[in-house]
Each structure stands twice: as structure tokens, then as C-alpha cells.
């Protein structure tokens, strides 16, 4: 339980992380963690109806999200409605199962299938993440699949599995609560205890540990309903908070953040071979990856894009960043850190940040040290990290091409199935 007083606005954020995500799923049962998140909004024993209604009626905004490593839930409520949020969150943590019926399960499974159609299948380039993860990570690695899951798995999911899932992962021993906002810490702590202390801790959850390595360059393609082909390049990188993680965050920033970035300058501004570029690191508990993308401007090929991207990566690996880039990277990191502190709740606000540090590191007070990681990056540590990880032989190249235009893919790419 983490409490942080902030009296600027008469609101309180309640934020709960369960340390479970799609990495706790197994092949044949993908998409379950996220489907389960939906069920958490369908009522619990003492309030067996929608979760949204009483909270919205009290003026709350609320949401939840699932990723590979964790599932989070939050409410931001007027300060005088804090107890309602605690009541609701503790009821679904302690007493969900009596209210979890077959009918709710089937209904939410259909909603998730619609969400999948809308956000993946019916969105241009929307299947890229599935193809990329499936190639970066081997079949039995829990990062092999996306959080939304495979259609066949979702259709085969059973309500009994949801009950088992809840017993394994949704209990105090696998959760972290953070409150931030306009309250008095002492009396509020008593209130949190009253609502949550009676809930049994549940079994210990064994951490999933798996390593991944690419031993060769892999080239794949996917046909999609798009006008312009796009190239994605990805490399495996160190886990979140591990040595090299901050360096690669800064490296992808200087490569692709804003118009001053190297890739924008080169591909969009000077050579005009791409309509857009991106590069970022997706930091995860077991293993991260850096992904770059570029969309071909009409008349240009993915091979041209690949050459330019790889030249810029090689240049950074050989020469390192400039002094100006280092200075810029540090001030941008500081600004982004401060920006995130503007809100007490929601995705990325103070309470979410406290839970992230607590869940991943057991160090809720890690904020200053986290900022310090970026301040300590040097010219040579950034250069060495790029050189070590963004290498030629351990890379995935994914071409997304208009339907029927396999000729536009990077040569020697093989088809990849996504389902």
C-alpha cells in the first residue's frame, strides 16, 4: 500500500496493479489476461452489476489496461468519493467469483473479439505487432503472442479458466495499491486497511523467467489493406531497468524523437524517401526490444529505407552521439519525467508510477534513481550499447505490403501467419 498526498486539486487517484499479464499465459490460452480484465468490470458479489455506473455517478473516471507484464486498474475520484472507490476495488479483489457467470464471460469474449477487429484487423498495419513478436520470440516464449490474443484461443476460452485465473493471480499477495491526491495519509491508511486487510493473500505467484535470443537475421512479410508499404526493423534488448535500458531509450529518442532526430532528418527531410519514421524501445520485464519503422514515400522501395535506417544505426554505433544530442536527450528526459508528475492518476500519473516501481523493483521511491539512470548515460556508454545490441545478424525485418504486391517486400522475405 502506497500513499502520496498531493493537495493541488480536490481529487484522489486509486491505482491497483496485479502482477499478471499476457506473459503468464500459455500457448492455446492466449488473450486470457486481457479478457479477464474485461470481466473485472462486470460486477462482484456485493455489487453484482456494472462496475462503471456507481463510480461514474460519483464523478470518477476509471479504466484498466493489460500488457505483457501487468494489469492495472485505476479510478480518479472527487476527494469525497475515495471510500466508494476502495469499496468497489476491494469487492472485486476479494469477492469476484460468486458474480462471474457463464453469460458475462461469453458476452465479454464477444466484446474482446470486436475490440480485436477494430484495433488490429481493421486498422492499417494493425497486425504488425503480432507478426513482429511472433518472429522475435520463439513459440514457447510468453512474449511470442500479443496481449489481445489469438482468435481461436479466445473462442475456446471457458469460464472455468477464468475462475482458476482469478484464484491464482487476483489477490493481495500479487497486487500493489497506490493512492495519490488530496487526502490525509493517516486516516486514509486506516480506511485502506479496513477494506483490503480481510482479503486472503492467495498463493505465491512464481515469476515467469525465459530468455530469448536471435541467432540470425529474419526477413518476413505480411500483406495488408494499405496503400504504402512499411518496413519494421527490430532487435532484442536488455530487460526494463537492466544495464543498457536507459542508453537505448535515449538512443531511440535521438534517432526518432521530433524533427531534429537523425532518422527524420535523413529519411523524411533530406532524402524524402519516407513519409514517416519511428523508433522506440518497448521495455519489458524479461527482455525488451527496439523497433524502428519507416513508411515508403510513393516511388521509393523498402530496400532504400532499410539501407538508410541501417546506415544511421551504424553511424551511431561507430561514432556515438554528439555533445548537443547528449545535452538534448538529458533535458528532454527531465522534462518528460516532470510532465508525468502533473497528474495524480490515470495511465502514467503519480500513482501509476509508484506502482510501476513497486511492482517491478519493490522500490516505490525509485523516481530520483530512475531519472538518475538517464543522467548517467555517457557518450561512450550509449555508443557501446548501440554497437552491442543493434547488430546486423540478430534482427527481424518485417515488410508490410499492399495486397498482391509481394514484389515490394525486402527480397528473400518469407510469409508469416498471424491468427
Amino acid at each position: 500500500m502506497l500513499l502520496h498526498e498531493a493537495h493541488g486539486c480536490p481529487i484522489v487517484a486509486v491505482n491497483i496493479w496485479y502482477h499478471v499479464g499476457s506473459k503468464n499465459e500459455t500457448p492455446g490460452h492466449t488473450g486470457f489476461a486481457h479478457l479477464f480484465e474485461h470481466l473485472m468490470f462486470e460486477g462482484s458479489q456485493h455489487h453484482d452489476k456494472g462496475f462503471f455506473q456507481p463510480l461514474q455517478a460519483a464523478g470518477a473516471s476509471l479504466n484498466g489496461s493489460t500488457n505483457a507484464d501487468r494489469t492495472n486498474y485505476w479510478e480518479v475520484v472527487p476527494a469525497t468519493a475515495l471510500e466508494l472507490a476502495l469499496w468497489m476495488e476491494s469487492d472485486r479483489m476479494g469477492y469476484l467469483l460468486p458474480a462471474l457467470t457463464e453469460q458475462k464471460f461469453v458476452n465479454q469474449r464477444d466484446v474482446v473479439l470486436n475490440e480485436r477487429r477494430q484495433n488490429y484487423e481493421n486498422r492499417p498495419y494493425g497486425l504488425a505487432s503480432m507478426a513482429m513478436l511472433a518472429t522475435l520470440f520463439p513459440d514457447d516464449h510468453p512474449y511470442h503472442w500479443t496481449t489481445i490474443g489469438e482468435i481461436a484461443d479466445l473462442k475456446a476460452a471457458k469460464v472455468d479458466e477464468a475462475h482458476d485465473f482469478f484464484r491464482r493471480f487476483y489477490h493481495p499477495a500479487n497486487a500493489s495499491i497506490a493512492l495519490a491526491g488530496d487526502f490525509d495519509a493517516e486516516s486514509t491508511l486506516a480506511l485502506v486497511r479496513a477494506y483490503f486487510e480481510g482479503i486472503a493473500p492467495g498463493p505465491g505467484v512464481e515469476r515467469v523467467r525465459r530468455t530469448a535470443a536471435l541467432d540470425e537475421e529474419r526477413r518476413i512479410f505480411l500483406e495488408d489493406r494499405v496503400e504504402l508499404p512499411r518496413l519494421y526493423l527490430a532487435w532484442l534488448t536488455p530487460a526494463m531497468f537492466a544495464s543498457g535500458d536507459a542508453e537505448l531509450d535515449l538512443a531511440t529518442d535521438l534517432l526518432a524523437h521530433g524533427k531534429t532526430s537523425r532518422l527524420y532528418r535523413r529519411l523524411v527531410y533530406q532524402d524524402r524517401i519516407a513519409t514517416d519514421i519511428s523508433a522506440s524501445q518497448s521495455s519489458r520485464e524479461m527482455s525488451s526490444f527496439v523497433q524502428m519503422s519507416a513508411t515508403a514515400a510513393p516511388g521509393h522501395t523498402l530496400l532504400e529505407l532499410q539501407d538508410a535506417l541501417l546506415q544511421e544505426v551504424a553511424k551511431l554505433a561507430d561514432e556515438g552521439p554528439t555533445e548537443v544530442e547528449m545535452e538534448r536527450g538529458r533535458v528532454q528526459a527531465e522534462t518528460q519525467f516532470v510532465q508525468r508528475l502533473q497528474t495524480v492518476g490515470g495511465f502514467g500519473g503519480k500513482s501509476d508510477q509508484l506502482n510501476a516501481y513497486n511492482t517491478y523493483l519493490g522500490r516505490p521511491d525509485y523516481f530520483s534513481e530512475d531519472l538518475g539512470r538517464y543522467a548517467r548515460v555517457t557518450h561512450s556508454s550509449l555508443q557501446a550499447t548501440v554497437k552491442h545490441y543493434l547488430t546486423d545478424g540478430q534482427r527481424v525485418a518485417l515488410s508490410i505490403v499492399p495486397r498482391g504486391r509481394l514484389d515490394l517486400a525486402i527480397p528473400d522475405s518469407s510469409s508469416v501467419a498471424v491468427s
Partner: protein
Amino acid sequence: MSPAASGGVDRSQLPPLRPVPRFTFPRVMKSTMANGLGVWTAHHDEVPITEFMLVVRHGAASDPIGHEGLSAFTTDMLDEGSGPFSALEVSEQLARIGAQLGVDVGADAILVGVSSLTRFVERALQLLADIVVRPALREEDFERVRRQRLNRLVQLRDMPGAIAERVFMRLLFGDAPYGHTPLGGEASLNAMTVDDIRAFHQRTFRPGEATLVAVGDVDHDTMCRLAGAAFGSWDGGPSTSVRDDVPLPVPARLNIIARPGAPQSELRIGHVAVSRSTPDYHALVAANMVLGGQYVSRVNLNLRGEKGITYGVRTAFEFRRFPGPFLLSVSVDKAATALAISESMKEISDIRQARPVSASELAIGIAALTRGYAKNFETCDQLARAVAQMALFNLPEDFYSEFVPRIEALTPDEVTQAAARHLDPSRLTALVVGDVDPASQEFGRLELGVPELLSPDSI
């Protein structure tokens, strides 16, 4: 232990709602510079961040016919070099102080914002002035940016939501000022020259048509002094007005854009409704909450909750200077397209009379609008946008502080009456972007006439 008492707390009922402390918007201090530029500031010291937002009272609605997209194109050109500096040099200067430039071109206004750590506030404001007042607007940058914008149009063809948005505005407004999205179209972008951009900048980016909003931990006098140094030399000049004399078209009731193979249909339903200055503003905001403005709204509970055919549906009145659209937006399972249209239209129709807004529905809507109102004003950016709205629509000084009492005073009857005045089921137009058979009986049963078949570019 009874289940109702589990955990030592009373679970037999939810904790009662307690009153929410009254919300008061920070005081807005206003000054006007000699050249006519308004400087409006609000104090906020939660974090060492300061936000500047320049509001120009012209947006996409000021685009001339044939040059749709000109205001957004011009705005996009602002940071492509300034004075002697190239585009990259301008970006570099912003990046070195960690400042973020954000531009937003809407129908009625252009917003150009810069946020930075407060210790860089003077430099950030100077850069904002360089960008807005003295952009280079060079021919070579113009061609490059045009190419990028044309490419963007090509990419939007992949996105059913973007196709629907663009075509739907055209259906409702035709050649009238709101008949296009800020990006414009291929023909209009190709018809422009760099001189059009320069002329538009000349007549639109004027201190008398603009307000500089500043929110952060800097006092009003200091802000005014800094604004004077940065914007003092900006020339004044006569203002221009938005043409509002073009008649609105009468679109077909049902319009279809074929998208073979699409698993979902993208749907828009609506009609031209009401302007921001309507006396029914608060009643319509409340009516919309009941109809489709929140998770527990009628259309969402129907289409998502009961029928499970969508991930979510929203309605909105877009309040603008001139009457803007009332709009329902949803993406549905393609097999349920006709069902979604008929159920949506039924809900829009029913709230006017057949199923008037009930006291309990209104109570939920009011609570959602008012009880959490304070959280809309937590960050510098949120506060700056709120002040920008005040400047743009001449909202009264106490608009935000009075919002909650005004909404709380509404009665179900007032809200139903306002919905009845401004929603007109007989004028609702539907647009489908999807893989549907226009000749199917389901569409026939909608009784919306013969579907008009459109292509994404035909309009």
C-alpha cells in the same frame, strides 16, 4: 461472518455519496498589448512547467473554396524555418530546452502551444514568437511539406474512420465552411502555391485576432513583460471574417462507401445542429450524456451492452462558432450494420418524446458531468486549453466556476425539450464505410430511401 460484513466493513450497500467541494477556476488575468494581442494568464504551481498557447481565431472554416486545407498547411509551415534559421535549426533550438511544440488546427481556431520547464520560459516564448510571427515560408520547404501532406492523404485511405469523417463532413456541409477536414483534399492541396500560404499567414496570423494564454508558476506582470519583448513588434492590421453565406446541402439519408473485406463497418449518423452560443448549451451537454456521451449512455448500453456488436459508441454535439454537427460514431460488426443504424436512429428519436430523459438518468448524467469536474483542470495543458476556449468563444469570466451549478439546476423536462429542439430524426443522415450489400433487404427495411453509393474520393 455474513458475506455482507466481510472484511470488517459494511458490504450490504455502497458508501453514500457525499457532497463534492465547490470547484473554483483559477483567476484569469487579462491584458491587451498595444498591437492588440491579448495576454491571458492563470497561475499554477504544481510542477515547474509553463504552458504557452497562442489562440488564433481562424481555423479550417476560414479556408477559401478550392483551397481547402490552407489554414492547416500554413500552420504546418510555421516551424519550417524562421528568419535566417532552417526548419531543423528551429526544431533544434526547441529541443535543446526540452520544449514541446504542439499545433492544433480546428474548424474555428488554430492553437500553437509550447510547454517547457519553467526555468526556460523566456527562451520558449521567444521561440514561439519567432515561429508564429516570422516564419520563413520558403518555396523549397513548401514543396516538401505539400508532398508529406499528400502522402498523408494517401495513408488516410487505409483508415475507415478517417474516410468516414472526411466524407461525412462533406455530406452535411458541402461547400459551407465546415464541409472539409483541416487536411483538405488532393485537388485543393495541388492547387495551392507558396504565395497562397504567405497571403493566408498575412491576413490570419494577426495580433488583433489572437490571444496568448500562459499557465504556470510565473506572475501576470512577468508574463506580460516577456510577451511584450517577444511579440511587441508583431504588426496589427484589419481583421477578416469567415464566410457564412453558403447554403447547406440536402444529403441522401443513407450513403455507402464500399470497403471489400472489412470485418467491421464504420458508421456515422448525424445532422447539422447548433452553435456554441446557443442558450441550450448546458441542457444539450446533459442530454448528450444520457444519449451517448458516456459508458452508461443509452446507445452504448444498447449496442455494446445488450447486443455486443461494438467495442463502443459515442455521440456528441460539436459546439462551434456556427452550427456544428450532432454526430454518432461507431464501428460495428459488419453483419450488424443495418441493426446498428436502426437502433441508433431509434435512440436519437426516442429521447425527444417517446422515452424522455428520466430523473434518474439525468441524475447520473449530471453526476458524471459535475462530480468529477475538477479533474478536468489538473494540468497546465488542461488549464491553458480551458482559458483558450474562453478567449475563442467569449465565455463569461465565471463560465467554469458556474458550470457545475448551471448543470445541477437542469430538470429532466428542460433537457428533453432541448434534445427535441435540436435533434431532428427526419434529417438524420447515415454513412457506412464497410463491406455491405447496398441492395440487401435489411437496408431496404430502414426506409431511408435508395442508398447513395460513394467512393472515398468521389466527394
